[in-house]
């Protein structure tokens, strides 16, 4: 029998034929809901398949459907009710008869359905851009704006506000509402990180559903009735779980805003850079908003393999230190005249030449990138050095926060800087220094005096090379101190707790003379090993991907990482 590969057919996806704006398309019958469960596809999703965006406020793909804002109203045509023979009405040519929906008591008036909660029916016609649909949208927007304060000049949401956007796209310029607007509480302190402006709220309940169903903290609700309805917390219970800022992201208007970002900068000035949160090993995908080298905010970037559309508050707000005045900005070398990067790297290269194999130790933080760890590993291999990282453990939670507070522990393990248990080699290194077998120590991004290698031990070193971004007891003892970069100031990749290798981009320039670690490490490695590496991060990553086994197995390369990253075996 010929050796034929048996190709398994993927299970056929059941589809439904529908017509969107007169165009016949087939859409999957079932679509995953917010929990990933397969449920019938809705009109709104069908339009998305057809490339048409239905405006919506309360619908969010990662939240339960509520169907309360009515923004997604569309006019549709349905097959008629089956007659006595059990068959729906047919056209003369034998095809299914589709009637545009009308109000039952006023048959001349078109009736809309809410796209977010109406399941598809085979043969359905969706008039997504018809004059009837347009009129429905205008009416909904006019009603939403009845009591809206139009605070855009002082509203932090302006520029990314769905009310502004839809008003421009689907609204009308005039309102028939001549009465006085209802006023509601403004600038309400909902919790330590969130501000509420009740007048701007469109009562979509996204924030309520997020808190109750995703964050697991049933903290928000609506109080009062009619046009006085207001989002509120329970008396005496501030809105302070670790995920509150996500409600500011999903709030389609400026009702919930971040206190941290309040009145800091208008969003249209912010340059957006894809990045990663370095708060823990989860590695939530983020977008950094910066202007003129100043970081203003960090928001989650949707990645279903990692964080979905969410991130925790503590990680999101953990960026202020980047702009700290205390940052290390200058190269420092003891007993040497070299001050420029070139001279210092050449001098270190020269000194390393005299180092005997086996007399070196390298302690590299698991907060360094894969590329940096890889370069350090090359140095370690050359000098048969003993290497390790430092564990950093805290508390995890049910949603995103990981107990491992290092963003790249898995990178350190995979590249071979650390073993399964981070820090297992540290006592051996301390002993080696004590007994005099280790004479050269390279430390990246850690204060080793906190981890069993005391200042007296550091004083015994022949050569102590330290790179960090803040001064500490270890940097004070360094013979060569090389100022490095924060994650927002360089490019690189991390391997998260699940083995997702993902990249982050550079948003800011480094302060003073500080330089990305992979840049000067690459020069140093080239000085020492004479190997011809790559001088770009892309090249370096691709080279690493051919040398680290698990990366090789996945045939990783920089471009293929994309925005979401690739999962490797851990």
């Amino acid at each position, binding site marked *: 029998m010929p050796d034929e590969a048996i190709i398994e057919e993927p299970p056929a996806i059941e589809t439904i034929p529908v017509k969107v704006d007169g165009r016949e398309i087939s859409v999957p019958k079932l679509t995953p809901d917010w929990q990933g469960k397969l449920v019938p596809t809705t009109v709104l999703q069908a339009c998305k398949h057809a490339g048409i965006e239905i405006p919506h406020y309360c619908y969010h793909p990662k939240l339960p459907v509520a169907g309360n804002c009515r923004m997604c109203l569309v006019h549709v045509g349905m097959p008629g009710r089956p007659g006595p023979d059990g068959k729906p009405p047919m056209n003369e040519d034998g095809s299914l008869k589709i009637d545009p929906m009308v109000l039952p008591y006023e048959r001349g008036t078109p009736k809309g359905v809410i796209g977010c909660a109406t399941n598809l029916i085979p043969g359905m016609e969706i008039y997504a851009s018809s004059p009837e649909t347009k009129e429905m949208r205008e009416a909904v927007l006019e009603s939403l704006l009845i009591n809206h*304060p139009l605070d*855009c*000049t*002082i509203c932090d949401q*302006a520029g990314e506000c769905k009310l502004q956007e839809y008003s421009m796209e689907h609204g009308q310029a005039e309102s028939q509402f001549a009465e*006085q*607007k*209802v*006023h*509601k*509480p*403004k*600038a*309400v*302190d*909902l*919790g330590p990180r969130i501000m509420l402006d009740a007048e701007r709220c469109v009562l979509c309940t996204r924030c309520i559903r997020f808190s109750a169903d995703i964050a697991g903290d049933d903290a928000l609700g609506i109080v009062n009735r009619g046009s006085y309805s207001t989002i509120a*917390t329970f*008396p*005496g*219970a*501030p*809105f302070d779980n670790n995920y509150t800022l996500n409600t500011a992201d999903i709030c389609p208007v400026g009702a919930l805003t971040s*206190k*941290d970002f*309040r*009145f*800091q*900068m*208008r969003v*249209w*000035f912010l340059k957006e850079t894809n990045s990663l949160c370095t708060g823990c090993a989860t590695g939530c995908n983020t977008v950094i908003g910066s202007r003129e080298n100043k970081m203003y905010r960090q928001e989650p970037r949707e990645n279903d393999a990692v964080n979905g559309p969410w991130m925790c508050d503590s990680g999101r707000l953990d960026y202020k230190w980047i702009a700290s005045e205390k940052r290390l900005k200058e190269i420092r070398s003891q007993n040497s005249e070299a001050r420029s990067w070139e001279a210092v790297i050449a001098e270190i290269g020269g000194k390393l030449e005299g180092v005997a194999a086996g007399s070196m130790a390298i302690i590299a933080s698991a907060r360094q990138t894969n590329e940096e760890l890889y370069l350090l590993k090359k140095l370690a291999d050359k000098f048969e050095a003993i290497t390790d990282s430092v564990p950093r453990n805290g508390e995890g939670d049910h949603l995103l926060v990981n107990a491992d507070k290092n963003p790249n522990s898995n990178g350190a393990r995979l590249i071979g800087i650390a073993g399964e248990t981070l820090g297992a080699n540290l006592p051996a290194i301390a002993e080696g220094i004590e007994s005099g077998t280790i004479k050269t120590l390279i430390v990246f991004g850690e204060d080793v005096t906190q981890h069993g290698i005391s200042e007296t031990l550091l004083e015994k070193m022949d050569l102590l090379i330290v790179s960090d971004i803040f001064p500490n007891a270890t940097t004070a003892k360094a013979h060569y101190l090389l100022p490095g970069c924060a994650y927002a100031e360089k490019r690189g990749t991390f391997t998260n707790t699940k083995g997702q290798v993902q990249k982050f981009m550079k948003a800011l320039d480094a302060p003073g003379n500080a330089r990305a670690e992979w840049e000067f490490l690459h020069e140093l490695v080239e000085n020492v090993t004479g190997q011809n590496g790559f001088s770009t991060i892309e090249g370096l990553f691709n080279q690493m991907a051919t040398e680290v086994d698990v990366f090789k197995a996945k045939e990783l390369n920089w471009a293929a990482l994309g925005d979401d990253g690739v999962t490797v075996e851990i």
Partner: protein
Amino acid sequence: MAIKVQRVKLSLWERLFIPTLWNGFKVTLGHFLSFKKSKVYAEKNKDNKFKATLSYPEELWTVPPGFRGAPYLVSDQDAATKCVSCQLCEFVCPPKAIRITPPGEDGEAAHREGAEKMPKEFEIDMLRCIFCGYCEEVCPEEAIYLAKDYYEGYDDEKMRRDYALTGSNREEMIFNKDKLLERGGTHHDRIKKWEKKTADAKAQETFPVGENPKAE
């Protein structure tokens, strides 16, 4: 395809240029001598008082109506800063002459209750400004105007629009918030929208605007 331009060969007389210059001067001189006979002069000298020069700065130039002037910030009749730091002017300004520092979360409270914020600093680099007036046009708060009445005894007829921006160095030409407000003077705001909103809200006996009812 390139086109080859044939150069005209000039004679020595033409290459001297002096005769050409002289021809130019002749035209200028002709206008100079014939000005008094011209219609323009007759028009301007109807009352026999026309002077071609001005004893500036003692005498000031009455600017033509289309002249725009320079952008300044205005206060309302209660001396409250009208700008709410929305930064639209900063965004629209073609030469990027405007630079606003937003107040941040704990900036100084806005002068008007309900307006919630005002800029911490507001700078216009008058050397960059091209006096286009886009900032005035875009401002949703009517807070920035091109050289309206900034001196006592404002007279619309002779309104001095600012055409004499001087300074002895670049730094001096960057006008800060205080200077812009001082020069901008008072704008007689008829709408007073923030005041109205706050009064409406208070009248409705809802939570008072401007006070933060803190979560206990």
